């Protein structure tokens, strides 16, 4: 997030898109609800489903799946046309407005209505509400990124925010809500193929040299490596021979599970390190038991870039060990001894090699976390990014055209399918499904379908349905719901027994390499 969570209660207008906030980020959603109820903020929700937070919204816009660039361009069209943008801000802090103007010129509300299905008057009203707010914040999540146009979607939201001078002010910002507890941290720590910690590029010779001397090695690899999705593809093709997986379950979470299964089977050697015997671990050559978050010391970095402590409360079961300790032990057997007294010592090394974490240490974050960038031990941290200027100088507008999703409904597969999470479960359910109360509240997979579609197919609540896509098929019961709209069904992806990702499409965003989990075409029938 560019802004801290607390800032939400300072916003005059909040635009939520592609985030089922109350179910996926419940505590953060309370900030939104309080802002609306007690601070008079106006909430605009743009989402293909009538998600629970729409109850608090002044306006709910319902776009067709995968048409985000179109409606965002449409809003900018209105804002530019009516002169509602922040001229001084655009003048002083950004470049590229002319190119943007050229592209959005054709996105009239009428044209956008054709693509997105959002009535022109509603789009215009939302554009005005957003533009006229002194401080407007945008919150988004996987509903924006998990598309072949994910990167375009994110850039478009940034365009909109910059156009109205909403980046770098309290109560504003473009704020991605991270789905998993430490996605932010995994990225910050260099758990990415092209960067070391703090987003320092692996192909920058100066950076590489620094890391080589810090780590005491002769030669670090100089080309960016493979992304997770590319690793799967290379395994499928037989070029990747071994995979070491920590704490993930691609056999439920990958798009196109049939492809994932073949890829993993094709490996010469698979190691899985986890706290449970997952669907993926079952396929491994070696399975290593690791410690859960309650059994170790360390830090997580949350969605607002705040580094917070994790503390050991209990001992791990049996022979299970902490993930870091396992890797250090293994490194010795491979001829390079990594060894640390404890996690505090690792954080000290992180601070030494990472400019944005350089002021962070355990003493400072004992009671309260720190937001990076934190560039010195007397630096207070940075809750709000881009205050006086953008990190990289001027903010650049990206002129972006709308592109269709990779797959749209046709005669054979007439319905849109979108996937997501439920309040009561988390990811592939390996943790939440151990709590009886949570299973009682969300026991099994279902297909959420609108009243109209249910009537069309002659369905009643609880009917067992066969859902087919070009990739595979699953069975689940019908749930007729006010949340669904005609033409689109929704399936939660938590359940291994009816894994929604047997159906989803592995088409990737070309830059972020994120699969299009949020759109594919399916057919349903009663069994």
């Amino acid at each position, binding site marked *: 997030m560019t802004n801290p969570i607390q800032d939400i209660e300072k916003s005059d207008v909040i635009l939520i898109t592609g985030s089922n906030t109350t179910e996926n980020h*419940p*505590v953060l959603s309370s900030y939104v609800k*309080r802002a609306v109820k*007690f601070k008079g903020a106006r909430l605009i929700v743009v989402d293909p489903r009538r998600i629970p937070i729409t109850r608090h919204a002044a306006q709910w816009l319902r776009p067709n799946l995968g048409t985000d660039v179109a409606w965002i361009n449409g809003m900018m069209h209105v804002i530019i046309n009516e002169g509602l943008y922040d001229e001084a801000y655009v003048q002083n802090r950004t470049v590229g407005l002319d190119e943007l103007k050229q592209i959005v010129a054709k996105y009239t509300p009428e044209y956008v209505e054709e693509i997105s299905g959002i009535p022109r008057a509603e789009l215009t009203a939302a554009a005005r509400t957003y533009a006229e707010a002194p401080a407007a914040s945008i919150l988004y999540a996987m509903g924006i990124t998990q598309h072949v146009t994910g990167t375009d979607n994110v850039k478009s939201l940034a365009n909109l925010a910059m156009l109205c001078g909403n980046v770098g002010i309290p109560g504003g910002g473009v704020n991605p809500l991270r789905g*998993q*507890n*430490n*996605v932010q*941290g995994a990225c910050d*720590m*260099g*758990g*990415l*193929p092209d960067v070391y910690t703090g987003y320092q590029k692996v192909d920058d010779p100066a950076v590489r040299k620094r*890391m080589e001397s810090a780590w005491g090695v002769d030669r670090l*690899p100089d080309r960016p*490596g*493979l992304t*997770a999705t590319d690793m799967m593809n290379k*395994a499928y093709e037989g070029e*990747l*021979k*071994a995979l070491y997986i*920590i704490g*993930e379950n691609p056999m439920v979470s990958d798009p196109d599970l049939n492809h994932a299964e073949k890829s993993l089977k094709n490996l010469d050697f698979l*190691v899985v390190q986890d706290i449970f015997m997952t669907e993926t671990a079952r396929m491994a*050559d*070696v*399975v290593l*038991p690791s410690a*859960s*978050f*309650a*059994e*170790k010391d*360390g830090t997580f970095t*949350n969605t607002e870039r*705040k580094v*917070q*402590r994790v*503390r050991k*409360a*209990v001992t791990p079961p*049996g*022979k299970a060990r902490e993930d870091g300790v396992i*890797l*250090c032990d*293994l490194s010795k*057997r*491979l001829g*390079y001894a990594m060894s640390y007294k404890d996690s505090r010592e*690792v954080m000290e090394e*992180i601070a030494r090699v990472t400019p944005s974490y350089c002021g962070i240490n355990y003493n400072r974050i004992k009671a309260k*976390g720190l937001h990076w960038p934190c560039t010195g031990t007397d630096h207070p941290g940075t809750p709000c990014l881009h205050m006086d200027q953008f990190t990289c100088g001027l903010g650049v507008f990206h002129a972006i055209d709308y592109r269709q999703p990779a797959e749209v409904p046709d005669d054979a597969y007439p319905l849109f399918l979108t996937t997501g999470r439920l*309040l009561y479960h988390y990811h592939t359910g390996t943790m939440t499904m151990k*709590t*009886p*109360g949570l299973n*009682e509240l969300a026991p099994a997979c279902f297909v959420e379908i609108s009243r109209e579609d249910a009537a069309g197919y002659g369905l009643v609540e609880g009917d067992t349905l066969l859902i087919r896509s070009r990739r595979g098929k699953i069975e689940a019961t019908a749930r007729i719901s006010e949340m669904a709209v005609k033409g689109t069904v929704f399936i939660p992806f938590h359940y291994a027994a009816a894994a929604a990702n047997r159906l989803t499409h592995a088409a990737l965003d070309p830059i972020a390499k994120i*699969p299009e989990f949020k759109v594919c075409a399916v057919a349903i029938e009663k069994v």
Partner: protein
Amino acid sequence: MSASNRIQIDGKEVQFSPGETILEVAWRKGIAIPTLCYLKGASPTGACRICLVEVEGARSLVASCAAPAAPDMVVRTDSEKVIRSRKLNLELLLGSGHHYCVTCEADGDCRLQELAYEYEVETVRFTESPARYPVETNTLITRDFSRCIMCGRCVQACNDIQVNEAISYGYRGDASKIVTIGDRPYINSDCVFCGECVQACPVGALVAKPSRFKGKPWEMKKVRTTCSYCGVGCQMYLHVNKGRVVKVTGVDGIGPNYGSLCVKGRFGFDFIHDANRLNTPLVRENGALREADWDEALDRIARNLKKIIDKDGPDSIGFLTSARITNEENYVAQKFTRAVLGTNNVDHCARL
């Protein structure tokens, strides 16, 4: 600040800012006033009348949590009259239900118990009233109406803090009850089991069911940590008894959550001690996984990785680190991949 923005509390001159309640001014100045129903961040209800103070010129005692400070007010927080009424109110509250502390989940962490002791309530002068409503329970939350003092904190927590708007005041007089819409049990209501109400309840009327009979508060070690589910990063206490996590509560007074949690964070901790946790390394032999010790498992990994590096080069190995493990572990994982294996093929599944 103008001179007229002053009040006197227990003989001390203090300044206030417009809109501040007497309670807030007093607390800011370190003057203790006890409260029961007052909930930070929510609009005051004035329900419990424990925070009573004497205000010169006022006809009756004033609930300090609801009364705004006014210029030149003279306030006494500990006059005999104040103490007597507080004690009387406590007796009434104790008599209003079935406050059998012995096996109450709140015993040792109960505001009513604490205050009754502090105000030296010897015995309950009023006969205990029989429970008007039976105990209601589901797998996560138990509602014991016989212990409810109708302070309303749960209603404020649900409506003003979490804004789930699942409960409100129902019925009147002696029949008063905190109700969901249509007075249905929680499990069939709009309740989303965030447990904000449970944490707000000052007595044992709302209880986290999975933690029932799992230990008295003084037996628990509270370990402060960060939630391991979504990216909000709520600050929480793991309550540990006999080496097991038996309860989770939100850390009050600190961001990002200021005491709030969601259903996953508050109740989704059973996995920690689940019988199916992996507890030994496993290696594949003749097609099946069998138990192994660490040396065997790690040697096997080292041997195979070396072989693959020698034959096909380091770039034929991939490493998927995790958005679930700590920063320190992610750091070690990418360092391992780059410095030890010699490839940049490291990523995590956040995109998935």
